[in-house]
């Protein structure tokens, strides 16, 4: 029995929602970052699944290339995000995002 496409999509949606929840509910900036990673990987799952099931011709690698690019961007984003968090921590001795509201007047 072949696993149907919808299973993948459900897993990806679940993963996305967990990530979204983490982003919206965590106070810790690192937690938020981890949530963002989850959301990005949920997208990756979707991309690969659609490529595998929907793409008719296997010769092209578009879905996989998209996933690779997303992973790359996610790595860069994590690096920048962590650097920002470290900078905030150095400055304010906290990584709680509710404390980091100085841009508000």
């Amino acid at each position, binding site marked *: 029995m072949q696993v149907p496409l919808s299973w993948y999509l459900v897993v990806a949606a679940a993963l996305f929602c967990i990530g979204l929840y983490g982003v919206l509910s965590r106070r810790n900036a690192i937690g938020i970052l981890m949530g963002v990673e989850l959301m990005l990987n949920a997208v990756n799952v979707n991309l690969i699944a659609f490529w595998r099931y929907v793409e008719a011709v296997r010769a092209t690698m578009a879905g996989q290339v998209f996933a690779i690019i997303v992973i790359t961007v996610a790595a860069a984003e994590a690096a920048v995000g962590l650097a920002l968090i470290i900078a905030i921590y150095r400055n304010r001795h906290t990584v709680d995002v509710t404390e980091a509201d100085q*841009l*508000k007047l």
Partner: protein
Amino acid sequence: MTANFFFNLTWLIPLFPLAAFAIIVLWTNRNRLLSTWVAWIGIGLAWILSWIIFWLAGYHAKYLTASVENYPVPLFSTPTGSTELQVGFQVDTLTGLMLFMVPFVCLMIFIYSKGYMNYGTQAVDSRYSRFFAYISLFACGMLGLVVSDNLLTLFIFWEVMGLCSYLLIGFWFEKKYTDPNRITPKQASLKAFLTTRVGDILMLAGMLLLYIQTGTLTFKEIFSTEVLEQLATTYAFGQVPWATVIAILIFGGAVGKSAQFPLHVWLPDAMEGPTPVSALIHAATMVSAGVYLVARTFPLFVAVEGGTQLAVVAFIGAFTALFAGTMAIAQNDIKRVLAYSTISQLGFMFAALGIGAYVAAVFHLITHAFFKALLFLGSGSVIHGVEHGHHHSEHGGHGHESPEGDLRSGGFDANDMMNMGGLLRRMPATGWAFIVGALALTGIFPWAGFWSKDEILADAWNAFVHGTEYGVAKFWPIFVFAMLALAALLTAFYTARLVFLTFAGRPRTEAAHHAPESVPSMTWPLIILAVFSTFLGLFGMPWASRVYSLLGEYGTIMGEHIPHGEFNALVAGISLFVAGLGWLFGWLLYGRKPLVEAVDPIEKPLGPVYTLLKNRYYIDQLYHKVLVRPVINLASAAYAFDDRVVIDPIVDGVGRFGRWLSEWLKKAVDNPIIDGAVNGVGRVTTWFGEFMRATQTGQIQNYLLVAVVTILFLLILFLVRT
């Protein structure tokens, strides 16, 4: 060059002095010498052109008659209401004679003024250039008046002279006197202006009536037979024809300008002006304008046979001649004596006009202008000399006329004849010229005044004996004759008094003792005028009747017969006799034993009469009490009424109402609506901003939540739609 060429240039004559006035005022005001020359050249050109035209008018009289259709010459026309006003000039023999006299006498006065205003000395008048500008404008007024071909431009130039007389009489407007009763130049100028204004209003009324009745103000049209006929036969009220009413009103203007009773009061006070101005006003220009006006509009005066208008002119003239003569004998101010003499002589002219002796009146006008100019300039020279003498004896230096008047010269009056005496030796040129003028004025053979005055008396006598012209009642010629003969006696007496008090005997003051002769620019005009005063009368000799032919042509042009009297030995004898009698009295009282003390020998025997005459019959006081005071009181009352009762309360009320209204508007409209709207906008914006501010928490998760909710919302919307 043809005569026509010059006649067509006549309109330029008044423009030369006008140009001089403009140039001095606009450009050369700073440069005294240049201003003098500009004024001299202006009047000089006018003089040359005038004499050419006079010559042509005399010798081409027939030419003028033949081509009378060409004159007057219209220069331009301006629309006035439904009609057009033609403005032009005209040359006839009367204009020609005036052009002989006016610019020449003006020129003499202009030349004299240079010395009189102390050119080239330290004492030069601070407004020297302005003086020349004003007298140029004055000359322009008179010359424009004589060449006008219609009453309106004549009236305009007439008023130009009125303005100039005001400016010039008040030329030393800052002068103050220690005696508070003595009239200052400022007051005198106002008095002259306002008194002549009374006459001008009458004249204006006459002109308006004439225009309403005939629809024209051009002389040629007014004096056409049909128009005169119409004026004589239409009645203003009752049996009084329009011609009479208009003639009397126009004569009213002449009475004001020529200072006849009862408007004579301004002229003696006009002596407060500089002496050349007195000469201008009294001889060449302003007062002769009145006589000229009556002579010019003479056809109007004779339009109605035996009308009252001629009787009015005759009565006013004859009465004034005698009346002014009596006042002259009790004046001590040398210029005032001459002023009254002028009024008296103008009375002669009007009396002559009033009995229809047109030629004699104009002849006397011309001769009088010359010798009166001479007498005024001579008296100015005397005054000038005495002032210099006064300053010389006071300070031992060069004296000068001070604008502060006698405040600075310590109450010394250089015009007072009692301060003079013995001046013939000190100032021979002035003295002899003055004596020539005095002989001419009193009508001694063979000086000019004899011929012209005798002319008037002879015409009056002939009219009485042989019947009058124009239906004048027989009473008037003899009345005029008697009054004028008496006036001639007085003329001789006060002139003799003037001459002996000023020039004979020994100096009564240090000032007179040190008086120097005037500069040549002052004495030469005197000498020239003296020559004219001597020989001018010869034109009026019975065997050289140039004047008659000149004016006779004028008469034919106007379609009127102008009478002229024959030489009458009896009348000539009478006029010489009264003149001689006057001189004899004068000599007996003042010449035989020259005064040592400054007391007039006629003061005691005449008693109260002397006081009456000295105070000029109290007419000034009467006018002051009856006319001036009430007018001032009325004005004060009106002012008070105005100030407290009507105008000011209204103005205040309007102001208060406006203030109240604005307060109310502020409370009712401005504050709630305008301010409310503006504040409201601000407040709403603030409130909205506060509201929106709440969404800007700075919490990243809030923003994300909003984003998620929005996307979900859009997603649901999308799903529902599909």
